[in-house]
């Protein structure tokens, strides 16, 4: 097991495309870190650079305490699980899992021991002699994982390993991965575009966009204190509500003013307002669960019209129209809410976020 350090990592492709920009990430020993972001944000490229499958254009990569920029993939002490699994279709499960050991000339006895250990760990007993084509998606996924685990990697790299599974299996494998990580305490870098996966699995999450690191922190930090509008919008489902408007000082109190009304901002946001956003156009962000819906007028509330109710079972979401602005509000499933009625929305003061409009 080892720690991992990425220092000012850059990736430029020969065609000039700047895929990863000044990436600085420190992953401590045994940590589960997710790289998350939309397609093309550079998360897979970063993973491939750590794996040694892509050259690092600039910057330094340390695995353990070794500068690893020029160390070939096979000597980095990493193992990788690919999105497509990349199992060898011509080999049995056993041959697939022990391939790396065979290449490293590990004696047959130890190979067998490790194979049995992995088959046990991943619940693959009895499938040793099958070919990948004869396995289900979940089984293939576990073989790919097993193939990486037998190598005792210092750092385990997972490139969207669950994205080819159906929803139910994905949730199951999520738990499975968590269990394996707890048991093996290996350092894991996990690439995904699914923020829910990142939230449930990781010790920390690194959110990327356009090759840049947007924010890195624990799932709750990312969720509760998003650094910018992009992170706020990317993490959480349904997504955070955004309202464009501007800040105004009225009677020595800060107000957020937009086309459909105004809200007094809590003391909490004062610092932030002073620091950077004052005078500029801003965006107010509020998560669906931080809005209360009521049908009696209240101080400092917004007025809208209920329009659609979506039932998810454990939660219900109501869309409220305020002119052209649509807000998603979480409501108790049992609670009766009439549709097409005028309603009042109260925003939880300590859960409001303010972002620069232009900044991502």
């Amino acid at each position: 097991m080892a720690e991992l350090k990425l220092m000012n990592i850059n990736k430029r492709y020969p065609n000039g495309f700047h895929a990863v920009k000044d990436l600085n990430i420190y992953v401590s020993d045994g940590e589960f870190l997710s790289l998350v972001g939309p397609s093309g944000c550079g998360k897979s490229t970063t993973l491939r650079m750590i794996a040694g499958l892509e050259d690092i254009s600039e910057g330094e990569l340390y695995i353990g305490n070794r500068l690893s920029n020029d160390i070939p993939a096979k000597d980095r002490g990493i193992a990788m699980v690919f999105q497509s699994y990349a199992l060898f279709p011509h080999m049995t499960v056993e041959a697939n899992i022990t391939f790396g050991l065979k290449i490293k000339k590990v004696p047959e006895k130890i190979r067998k021991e490790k194979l049995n250990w992995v088959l046990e760990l991943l619940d693959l007993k009895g499938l040793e002699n099958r070919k990948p084509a004869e396995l289900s998606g979940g089984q293939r996924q576990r073989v790919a994982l097993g193939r990486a685990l037998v190598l005792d990697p210092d750092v385990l790299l997972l490139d969207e390993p669950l994205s080819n599974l159906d929803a139910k299996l994905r949730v199951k494998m999520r738990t499975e991965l968590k269990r394996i990580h707890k048991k093996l305490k290996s350092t894991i870098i996990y690439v995904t575009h699914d923020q829910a996966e990142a939230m449930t699995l990781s010790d920390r999450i690194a959110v990327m966009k356009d090759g840049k690191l947007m924010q890195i922190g624990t799932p709750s930090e990312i969720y509760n204190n998003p650094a910018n509008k992009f992170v706020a919008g990317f993490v959480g489902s349904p997504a955070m509500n955004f309202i464009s408007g501007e800040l105004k000082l009225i009677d020595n109190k800060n107000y957020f003013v937009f086309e459909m009304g105004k809200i007094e901002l809590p003391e909490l946001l004062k610092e932030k307002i002073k620091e950077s956003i004052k005078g500029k156009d801003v965006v107010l962000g509020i998560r669906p669960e931080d809005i209360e819906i009521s049908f009696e007028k209240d101080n400092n509330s917004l007025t809208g019209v209920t329009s659609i109710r979506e039932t998810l079972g454990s939660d219900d979401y109501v869309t409220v129209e305020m002119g052209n602005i649509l807000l998603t509000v979480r409501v108790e499933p049992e609670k009766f809410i009439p549709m097409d009625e005028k309603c009042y929305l109260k925003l939880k003061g300590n859960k409001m976020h303010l972002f620069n409009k232009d900044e991502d």
Partner: protein
Amino acid sequence: MRKILIAFRKNSFLIYSLIPAFLYIGFFALIIGFYLLKLSLTKYAGGDVVLSSTLYNYIKIFDDPMFNKEFSDAFRRTLIFVIVVTPLQLVTGLITAMLINKSFAGRGIVRSILLLPLAIPTIVTTSVLLILFSKGGHMTSLLMGRYSFFPKIFDYEISFISNPYTSIGLSIFGKVWRDTPISMLILLSGLQQINEEQYEAARTMGATAVQNFFYITIPLLMPSISSVLILRSIEAWKEFIFPYILAPSYPILGVLIEKYYVQLMDPGTAAMVGIVLIVCILVTSYVLTYILNKINRYLIRA
């Protein structure tokens, strides 16, 4: 009966579409094979049938010392031809296919050049080789220093065509050059089905390029490799035109057929050689499949 009729009606399109295949096998394999066998069991003399339903043509191989020498020489040459040409075409095909499989500037042009031998009529290829290598041809002139740009290497004229080794060697060269594109295309289609990520996965697990080649490329290419080896070995066994033109004094079995059928008007002996070729081809295909299976199993074992 009713059941059969219903089944027939259900699958009638499938059954009708099989008719061409049956006709093909019927005409081109069974009927021709039957007549070939019948012909090989007929003794001819001076263009006339003397005896039918006889093993004379086969027994002649062992009984007639003159024919025995001619046949065994031709058989030996054919065997050498097959043993050299078949693997050589696999190697040249694999090298060119792997070259083209990589993307590089000017790949299209290189691909066209590599396919060119197929587009040139074989008779032209053989004629060019003949002009180059025959007595007084360009190659002897070149080696004797008759061209100013090349140093003199030999004092005397070399006759490539009348030497058993160089003439068969030339035929082999011509054959391999002409047919490499076929092997290349078969192997290229196989190579393109291999997912690049498998090589990357192997790399992260510690495999070198050589190990990648033997543990991933070769086993995944096995279907293409066996097609190439079997098709090419069949072609090599029944080769005619290259040795016919380039090694006229050293016939192989295919040339022997022409000699007996056309020149000596003995179709019986010609047919017998043809039957021997068919048996050789069947045996070779079987042996090749067996060996390839063994190799494959060795490479993919745990």
